[in-house]
């Protein structure tokens, strides 16, 4: 059964291979045949375009005796031996075979373009199936479905095999995503503050014994508290307009603080610890012992001027740096996508502890700027719509246009410089442009005939481009002329 090859040509005909990738395909050496990477075909290879039917066909080689189908001719030949039929195994041809690459038949697909053809028949089959085929294989455990059976099998092996769950409820299949999330998740921040003194396990999956027993975890004060050092410079503040007030104040108030190269933390620790219970109550609850030198205590690694840190605050309460647990919800409010963003079940963040006595009154919650931002995000339509309005699209008369055969005599009158090797004219001619010169002039883009020399060819441009392209809606064409549209240079 002959293979249904419909079209073949050289890759490097028109489309330039070099424009696709940022490097050239590896050279083919005689001794060791290097695999060309998928999607970066050898410029000299032959492009094969198979029809969808051919691609999806399995078992094209059929035994004449028992009608058993095989995917490869070699297999059929071996089978024929069993019927005592004459068989011949094709040897690898001694002469250099021109390499074949395959394109996807679906126009608009990335691999439809010869410069992005795939070198492997199986590869293009799988691609076609995956991208354009029906997803018949469904995973039992999750909602994913696959068009290619091997993909489905590969997924089933790993689906649900490992799961990491953050305390906030989100599930992760990869450990590194889990860790990254955990580092920034609010639930962790609260828990660690609460549990720090009890040296409780924070990591449900793996906590080594040594961590629990290590002195750093158990002992409280001095041994190396964490610290955040703000290097003083004239302009430390980097906040944007959505930043709540206190942060700005923080920056300016640490200006006079000089960072010393030896460890300042131990000196300041006591100072800050005194303040801690007053200022930064992470959970709002009163179980903040002095051991909550937690993160926020170490936040401002400053020396003697730490009292000034708080004195400089203009908010009624000394806390200049609301804990992130209260910050986070604000930011989540600002984000319009909210918890549904990643499809994961991110629970709503715990209620901000604004109302506890230890914390300052909430900021003028969401600033006007942020509200405007949110409104803008919600209100903005697809960009296409406004783009159209901006382009001044006007309606046209709806005279149906007949396709006539390509008249090579027509210059589209654009007279574009063809510096890039394929001028716009050729581009459009090449697509069997069709236009009817007798069409009445239409108002195109609001540029009526009366306006200078702008117009008529333009209408032709559009129809010429799309006359050949199946079933496109286009504007009716304006009158065509041979002369240039008349560019104002």
């Amino acid at each position: 059964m002959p293979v249904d090859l419909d079209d073949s040509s050289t890759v490097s005909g028109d489309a330039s291979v070099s424009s696709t990738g940022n490097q050239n395909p590896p050279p083919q050496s005689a001794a060791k045949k290097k695999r060309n990477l998928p999607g970066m075909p050898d410029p000299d290879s032959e492009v094969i375009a198979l029809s969808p039917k051919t691609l999806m066909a399995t078992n094209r080689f059929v035994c004449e005796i028992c009608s058993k189908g095989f995917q490869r001719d070699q297999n059929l030949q071996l089978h024929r031996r069993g019927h005592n039929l004459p068989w011949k195994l094709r040897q690898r041809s001694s002469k250099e075979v021109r390499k074949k690459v395959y394109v996807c038949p679906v126009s608009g697909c990335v691999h439809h373009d010869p410069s992005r053809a795939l070198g492997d028949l199986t590869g293009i089959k799988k691609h076609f199936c995956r991208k354009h085929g029906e997803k018949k294989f469904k995973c039992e455990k999750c909602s994913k479905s696959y068009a290619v059976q091997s993909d489905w099998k590969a997924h089933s092996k790993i689906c649900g095999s490992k799961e990491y769950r953050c305390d906030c409820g989100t599930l992760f299949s990869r450990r590194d995503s889990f860790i990254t999330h955990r580092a920034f998740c609010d639930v962790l921040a609260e828990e660690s503050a609460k549990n720090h003194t009890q040296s409780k396990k924070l990591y449900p999956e793996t906590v080594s014994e040594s961590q629990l027993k290590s002195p750093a975890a158990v002992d409280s004060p001095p041994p190396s508290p964490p610290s955040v050092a703000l290097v003083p410079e004239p302009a430390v503040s980097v906040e944007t307009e959505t930043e709540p007030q206190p942060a700005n104040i923080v920056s300016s108030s640490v200006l006079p603080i000089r960072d010393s190269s030896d460890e300042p933390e131990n000196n300041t620790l006591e100072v800050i610890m005194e303040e801690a219970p007053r200022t930064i109550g992470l959970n709002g609850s009163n179980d903040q012992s002095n051991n909550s030198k937690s993160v926020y205590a170490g936040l401002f690694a400053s020396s003697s001027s730490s009292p000034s840190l708080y004195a400089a605050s203009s908010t009624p309460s000394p806390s200049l740096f609301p804990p992130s647990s209260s910050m986070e919800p604000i930011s989540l409010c600002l984000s319009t996508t909210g918890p549904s963003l990643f499809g994961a079940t991110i629970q709503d963040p715990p209620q901000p502890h604004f109302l506890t006595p230890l914390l300052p009154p909430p900021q003028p919650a969401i600033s006007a700027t942020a509200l405007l931002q949110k409104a803008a995000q919600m209100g903005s339509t697809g960009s296409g719509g406004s783009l159209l309005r901006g382009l001044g699209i006007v309606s046209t008369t709806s005279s149906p246009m007949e396709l006539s055969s390509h008249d090579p005599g027509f210059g589209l009158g654009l007279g574009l410089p063809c510096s890039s090797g394929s001028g716009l004219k050729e581009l459009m001619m090449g697509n069997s442009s069709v236009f009817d010169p007798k069409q009445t002039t239409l108002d195109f883009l609001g540029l009526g005939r009366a306006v200078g020399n702008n117009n008529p060819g333009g209408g032709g441009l559009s129809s010429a481009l799309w006359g050949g392209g199946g079933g496109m809606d286009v504007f009716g064409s304006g009158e065509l002329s041979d002369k240039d549209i008349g560019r104002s240079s």
Partner: protein
Amino acid sequence: MCHAKPQEERLVTHFSLNRTQMTRTRIISPTRFPSLKSQRCGSGGDASFMEQLLLHCATAIDSNDAALVHQLLWVLNNIASPDGDSSTQRLTSAFVRALLARAVSKIPTLFSTFGNTVFQPPADEIHRFSVVELAGFIDLTPWHRFGFIAANEAILTAVEGYAKVHIVDLSLTHCMQIPTLIDAIATKLNKPLLLKLTVVSSASNFPPFINISYEELGSKLVNFATSRNIEMQFTIIPSTYSDGFSSLLQHLRMYPTSYNEALVVNCHMMLRYIPDETLTPSSPSSLSLRNVFLNQLRSLNPTMVTLIEEDADLTSDNLVTRLSSAFNYFWIPFDTTDTFMSEQRRLYEAEISWKIENVVAKEGVERVERTETKGRWLERMRDNEFGGVRVREEAVSELKAMLGEHAVGWGMKKDDDDESLVLTWKGHSVVFATVWVPI
């Protein structure tokens, strides 16, 4: 051009475009067919076709041909919808918007035509991620995780035995690499006594944007490190890419590393913002801020420098060349969003569109996205007396395992000629990861 013309299935298909603003003429084509109704463009080889139109439009803009620009943009807008089904369309649409921005700023007469078209939200309206959101976002594809894994592996090896570890994180991703690094350090047998993390404050002029300050970000990281029993110090240096991070370098010089301290500078898609020779063409190459940065970095004698960047050349002064390079690179991120949910895809494409607009519509110091190819970066590093180091095999296996859990098109390759690891999408180079030590 080569087109596939299968004999069967010559359907005649009508398209209707959702343009309520316009009345259109329907055209029936007997000659071409598209195999799927959802395809808008009939002709094959769409991508190169669209590219040609974009390039012509670019040429027209720079030749001040207002009429032609207007027409081309109109046509392009017709054929490339921002919500189109094919990634090629959405990619082209992003370029159309960028060209529109350029046209309006270069050709004043067009401004009145297009008026106050809001075709792209201005930078400060782009989505601001919460850190948790960003953490999820950067793991949607291996784009960043690839570099994270490779760099962290190398860093772990480099800091072995040092009592203090100082990481300078120059990263586009606002420290998203750090939690896994902290976690890895925490599980080592000989933990360092102190982990110092230094970042710069200017990493907020390009996407992704976050909605908290670096102080807050740092405090979360410190908190996390504490929970893993690592003492950590977080420092923010106000320093900007536009002067080659000179204040950062100055700070590092002022507080040199002690004998038992490892200094690691992790450059993750940030160095591309430092002005290169194309921004100051009259100066000799040695004076470009990019080279100056590397030179001064070298003189700090760091224990290790990791360099992860996108492998593309977006620096050309010639708009047409630049646009072509950009088109032939940014199709990749648009193509990878198949598995995304619609909201994720919208956000992701908005980020890429920001970059496209910067590359196409901006000039001079405003054009910050000056990505260079791997080859060029390797040259720079070697010129500044850095030697490349191969990443361990364990890292390679980890990378492959990670890639296996993402969509099928992701792959990686190791170059035999240098020590780089390259992330690929359908065979095309996406991101390269390299590790350097002073020589």
